[in-house]
C-alpha cells in the first residue's frame, strides 16, 4: 500500500485543534479505563447495576435464540424416536423387570431410614426452590466463567442463591437484574464449594480451574489419597449450598489436590433450579 499523506492537517487551525483534541481524548479514555478498573478491583459489585441493565436487554434476546436452537435441536431426536420406538419399548420393559427388585429393596430401606430418623429426632431442612429458569448465554471470550440466567429479581432471585441443574450443582448467583441474573459457574477460578466424598465423608474443597474442570483439594493437612472415580457432593458447610448435591467426579487419582469433572454440564437445553441459601443469610452488621 502506498504511503498515506492524509495525516497532515494543513493550515486550518480548526482541523489542527480537532486532531489534537482527538488524541487528548484518546489518552483520557485510557486513563478513565484505568480508573474504572481500579474501582471495580476494589469494589467488584460497584458496576453490577450497569452490567445487569445491559443483561436485562440481552437476556430476552438470548432466550429467544436459545428457544429457536432448542426446537431445531429437538428435530433429529424426534425423528430417531419415531423409528426406534419398538426397540426402545422392549429395552425399557426389560429394564423395568430388572429394577423391580431394586425398587422393593429401596422401599424397605426408605422405610427403615424414616423410622431411624424419627428415632433420632432429626430435623431436616428441605431445599426451597425459588424459580426454575434456563441459562441462556455465557461469557465465552473472557477468562471468567459467568452464565446468564433468564430470571431475576422479579422472580425472587437474590445474590448468593445456589443454582443446581438436574444432575448436579451449577453455581451461585452473583448479580441480579430485573429479569436476568449472573451465575458464577463451578468451573470459574474464583468459585469455591465445600464438598465431601460420598464414600466416607472426607471433607474437601472444590475450586474451579477455568478450563472446564475442578480442583478437589483436601482440607486435612495429612496427605489424603483420592482415587479416580471418587464422587463428591456438597457438604453444606458454610450454609450456602444444601448438602448432598452432586458436584464432581475425580478424573485421575492422586494426593491432596486432584482434577475432577463436574457432573452438571451447564447448557441452554436444561433447566437450572435456583434455591434459597441452605441457612438464612445473617443480617449485615450496621443495618
Amino acid at each position: 500500500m502506498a504511503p498515506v499523506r492524509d495525516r497532515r492537517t494543513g493550515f486550518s487551525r480548526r482541523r489542527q485543534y480537532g486532531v489534537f483534541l482527538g488524541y487528548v481524548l484518546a489518552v483520557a479514555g485510557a486513563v478513565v479505563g484505568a480508573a474504572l478498573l481500579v474501582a471495580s478491583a476494589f469494589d467488584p459489585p460497584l458496576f453490577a447495576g450497569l452490567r445487569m441493565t445491559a443483561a436485562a436487554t440481552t437476556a430476552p434476546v438470548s432466550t429467544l435464540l436459545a428457544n429457536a436452537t432448542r426446537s431445531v435441536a429437538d428435530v433429529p431426536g424426534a425423528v430417531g424416536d419415531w423409528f426406534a420406538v419398538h426397540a426402545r419399548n422392549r429395552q425399557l420393559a426389560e429394564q423395568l423387570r430388572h429394577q423391580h427388585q431394586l425398587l422393593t429393596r429401596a422401599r424397605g430401606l426408605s422405610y427403615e431410614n424414616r423410622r431411624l430418623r424419627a428415632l433420632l429426632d432429626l430435623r431436616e431442612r428441605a431445599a426451597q426452590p425459588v424459580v426454575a429458569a434456563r441459562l441462556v448465554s455465557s461469557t465465552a471470550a473472557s477468562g471468567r466463567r459467568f452464565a446468564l440466567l433468564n430470571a431475576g429479581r422479579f422472580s425472587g432471585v437474590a445474590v448468593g442463591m445456589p443454582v443446581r441443574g438436574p444432575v448436579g450443582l451449577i453455581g451461585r448467583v452473583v448479580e441480579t437484574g430485573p429479569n436476568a441474573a449472573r451465575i458464577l459457574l463451578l468451573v470459574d477460578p474464583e468459585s469455591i464449594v465445600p464438598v465431601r466424598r460420598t464414600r466416607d465423608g472426607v471433607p474437601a474443597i472444590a475450586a474451579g480451574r477455568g478450563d472446564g474442570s475442578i480442583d478437589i483439594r483436601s482440607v486435612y493437612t495429612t496427605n489424603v489419597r483420592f482415587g479416580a472415580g471418587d464422587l463428591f457432593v456438597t457438604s453444606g458447610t458454610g450454609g450456602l449450598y444444601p448438602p448432598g448435591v452432586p458436584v464432581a467426579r475425580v478424573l485421575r487419582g492422586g494426593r491432596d489436590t486432584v482434577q475432577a469433572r463436574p457432573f452438571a454440564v451447564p447448557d441452554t437445553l436444561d433447566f437450572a433450579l435456583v434455591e434459597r441459601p441452605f441457612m438464612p443469610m445473617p443480617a449485615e452488621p450496621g443495618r
Partner: protein
Amino acid sequence: MSADDRNPFSPPLPPEQARAIPWITVMLASALTVLPVIAEVPLLPPPGLLMLLAWRLLARFALRPWAAAPLGFWDDLLSGQPLGSAVLLWSLCFLAIELLETRMVYRDFWQEWLVAAVAIALCLLAGRLIALPRAIPDWPLLAAQIATSVLAFPVAVRAAAWIDRKRGPLA
C-alpha cells in the same frame, strides 16, 4: 478506496450514518456473547476487539482515536470482564497503532495482520491477568484462544472491508 460496489448513481450516505456504521458493527460484534452457548472454556475470539482492530487498520478514519474507550465500555458491559478492562486495553491499542503508523510508511496486509496479532495477544493476556489476578493463567488454553483469535482476524477484516465498500465514500 474502491467504491466500485456501490451504485455510482445512488446518493452518498449522509456523513452521520456513514460514521455510525463502524460503531454499530463493533458494538454488534461485542454483542455476540448473547448467542445461547454456555462455554465452559474461554476459546471464543473477542469479536469486538477483532472488529475494532480491523476497522482501525483497514480504514483509519472510520473510527476516531477516542472511539476505543466508549466502544470498550460497551464491550465490558457484555463480556464479563471487570468494567474498565476493555476501555483501557482498547484505548492503549489505538494509541500504540497510532505510534506505529508514524514509523511504518508502507504497509500491506501481512504487516497489519502481524500488528493485529500482537495487539490481540497482549489484550487477551492482559485481560486474563486483570480478570483473574490471583490465578495462574492456563497457558495452553490462553495460547489456543490467541491462536483462534489471530486466525479469525482476516475474517473480521473481510467483513469490515465489505461493509466499507458498501457504505461508499464519505459525503
